């Protein structure tokens, strides 16, 4: 399908991945540091070839800064061996990442945050996606990215957990979707 595109990108990523990336090499702040106990600063989903599938920013961040963070995260996380620690240090943040099939879920936390709980947050999000899409795979998230965002917005808000019950999130999504359909002017066939 898009193999050559992916492999071309892959080669570019590989070249960059060859470099040794020191864990805290560059200094740069994401946003004016707010003195707060926020859970998450950002959440990124990217594929093993380094393609971004979802980005959620919980602090105001400029486009340039976002691009830089995404690049740095991809360079930090992709070369990690399996069965290594899921936690990294990057600048003044803790990075928590987990790989699910072909997707990396990567979150940036504040200094005081609980990394183990962040792993649970990532896991919960995957479960929610799985329930919604039914055996979710990367393609689901690519072709229905807006739904992935809507689900995220029912689970997290302002960098904090919004709803701790799986069922409640699913119910909200179903009901909101129903609302959407009645306003659709035509029924679209699912196809990809």
């Amino acid at each position, binding site marked *: 399908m898009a193999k050559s*595109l992916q492999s071309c990108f892959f080669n570019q990523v590989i070249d960059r991945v060859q470099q040794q990336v020191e864990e805290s090499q560059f200094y740069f702040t994401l946003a004016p540091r707010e003195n707060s106990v926020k859970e998450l600063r950002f959440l990124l989903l990217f594929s093993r070839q380094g393609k971004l599938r979802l980005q959620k920013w919980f602090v105001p961040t400029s486009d340039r800064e976002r691009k830089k963070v995404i690049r740095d995260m991809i360079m930090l996380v992709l070369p990690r061996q399996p069965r290594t620690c*899921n*936690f*990294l240090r990057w600048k003044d943040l803790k990075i928590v990442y987990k790989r699910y099939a072909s997707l990396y879920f990567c979150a940036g936390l504040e200094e005081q945050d609980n990394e183990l709980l962040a792993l649970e*947050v990532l896991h919960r999000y995957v479960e929610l996606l799985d329930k919604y899409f039914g055996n979710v795979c990367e393609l689901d998230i690519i*072709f229905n990215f807006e739904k992935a965002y809507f689900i995220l917005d029912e689970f997290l808000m302002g960098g904090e957990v919004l709803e*701790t*019950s799986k069922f409640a999130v699913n119910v909200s999504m179903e009901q909101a979707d129903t609302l959407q359909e009645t*306003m659709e002017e035509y029924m679209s066939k699912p196809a990809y």
Partner: protein
Amino acid sequence: MSPSVPLQEMIRAIRSARTQCEERGVIQRECAAIRAQFRQTDNGGRSHNLAKLLYVHMLGYPAHFGQMECVRMIASPRYSEKRVGYLGAMMLLDEKQDASLLITNSIKNDLSHSNQYVQSLALCTLACMGSAEMCRDLAPEIDRLLRSSNSYIKKKAALCAVHIVRKVHDLGELFVPSARSLLSEKNHGVLHGAVVLITELCERSPETLERFRKTVPDLVQIMKGLVISGYSPDHDVAGVSDPFLQVRILRLLRILGRNNEAASDAMNDLLAQVATNTDSTKTVGNAVLYETVLTVLDIKSESGLRVLAVNILGRFLLNNDRNIRYIAMTSLQKIVLTDHNAVQRHRGTIVDCLKDQDASVKRRALELSLALVSASNIRSMMKELLIFLSSCPPELRAQAASGIFNAAERYAPSKRWHIDTILHVLTTAGGDVRDETVPNLIQLITNTSELHCYTVHKLYRALLTDISQQPLVQVACWCIGEYGDLLLKGECQETEAVQVTEDDVLDALEIVLQSHMSTPTTRGFALTATMKLSTRITDNVDRIRSIVSIYGSCIDVELQQRAVEYNQCHIFFFLMDVLCSRTTFCVFFAQVVDLLDLLGAGLLHISESIPRFFMLLLASAPTVTVYEKNGVTLTLSCEQQSESGLTVTLTASNSTDSDISGFTLQAAVPKSVQLQMRAPSTDCLPAHGGAKLTQLVVLNNPNKVNLKMRIRVSYTCQGSVVQDMVQVDSFPGL
């Protein structure tokens, strides 16, 4: 769910592009179409268009022309359009964009919408990118929603309030009453939001924190309910009931209990209960335990509870899961200063973690191990650290090496151990040590006079084995230059002596000089050492001269300069004796260290050439021997400081076979001359000229009389007291 066909068709088209160039082409076409669509009147496909644009944006392409479309969509009465419009606002707009102001009104309207999902969109967007003005504008509305009867809205309003408080600190006051009442909610989502809000309010204002301290019993109640309650399918995660809520409550308790005895007491039992009852087989249970430990260590907890917490961390260290081990070490690092003894108990496990496969774990283990080094465990810890150094990942080498040096300096049980340790580090990780290691080591060796023989033997052997580690080679060359005579003697107390000839030693130095692995600095050291040996050896002076003169035409300017100047030195051979004689270093060169780096401190730059130095030397400190009897020599040098001021330096040395103690000097001068004796450097003169004694005498001769000085020498040698007097009639250089 109805996926958008136009969106998916576009995604498919983009993905099927074979090259980056092709993809760009597809995207350009699509963007042009989208832009055209934006300009058209409503055709029912607006939400699909915006969604397409958002996809393109996620791929990294510019999408700012969609900002106004977001504003329009948000104002639309259709839910599907609002939904995508708000999503677009969150992705494309931030508070810095002007367009974000335009959506304030829509948000305000939607907050009072009859449909909770529309309200929720507005709340979510406000919490994501609401600017300070928007927050100020809409805060009363949010407070109203906090009191609504709808849990779905309440929980969202709570987190929206959190965002408002972060943006505009003063608005916190507004939310205090509602936050308080939300604690009696049963709905976990609302409860969670309430706890987060209260945490935020307490963090912002100490007065608010005081007021919320009263809620500690309520929070304890809620926690107890979660911990003891039976299985609740809604909130259960691997046997733990609502871990997210538990962790947030624990964090709030931490903030409330900090620095407050009463509050800490009230939560003591609960914390013990959570610590003991929580199932630690899965990550989720450990997440709760971890938060509990952090809370216990931060509040004014009982010592028993504290020990329990540290023990939990100790258990974490033994966990199979790397993440847990990493967490444990990070936490132990934080308390290693305050609860040092408690952490020391787990030292063995921590040191074992140095051997872990994972680089993150290794790094933490290294930091923690270095923090745990103390006088009592230095030997065993250093063994482990040196083993670690030989196999550690390259990015940790520099940190490990400098940590080892610091620890060695602070806790070295003996000088020999200290030198051995430094040499070991230089052999294993010579390329990763800091620049000042070389002069520091040279200083250490110089000061450890009893080990000169041992050190030069060790370094000579190291040099024979490997000349690739530059710092080691530099120190070795310097040492051989300094103490080469001890090497040639062929006997050593501390270690097995080598039987070498002068040629062997010069061979070793020549190999360094000629090796392609040696840096220019190293070559400089080797050349200087070769030169220095000309005073310590007797047979091969010609060979030295020929080595040095070869470098007179070396391509490296620095080496060339040295070689040429050293060659000239041979003319002033007797002065070379002064320069290169071991003991004179300490006296003169401490002051003139920047003129000549014969001390071997490789970073120091030779700025003056030797002939010039000689002039300076002659001009500044001419020496004359004023007393020589029974192996005791006293030399005198003087320096004119001002019109009438003069500094006289007396230097004593002992070339007999036995040590001299109680050495004192007294001086007398003509009446009109003022005299001030400074404290002598020592009162012992070791045998065989081991070290010299210096004493400074400051004179003031305002009448410019003819200067004379009587010096009385007094010392004890082999049990008997010797006293003598000498008169100095002429001072050199005056």
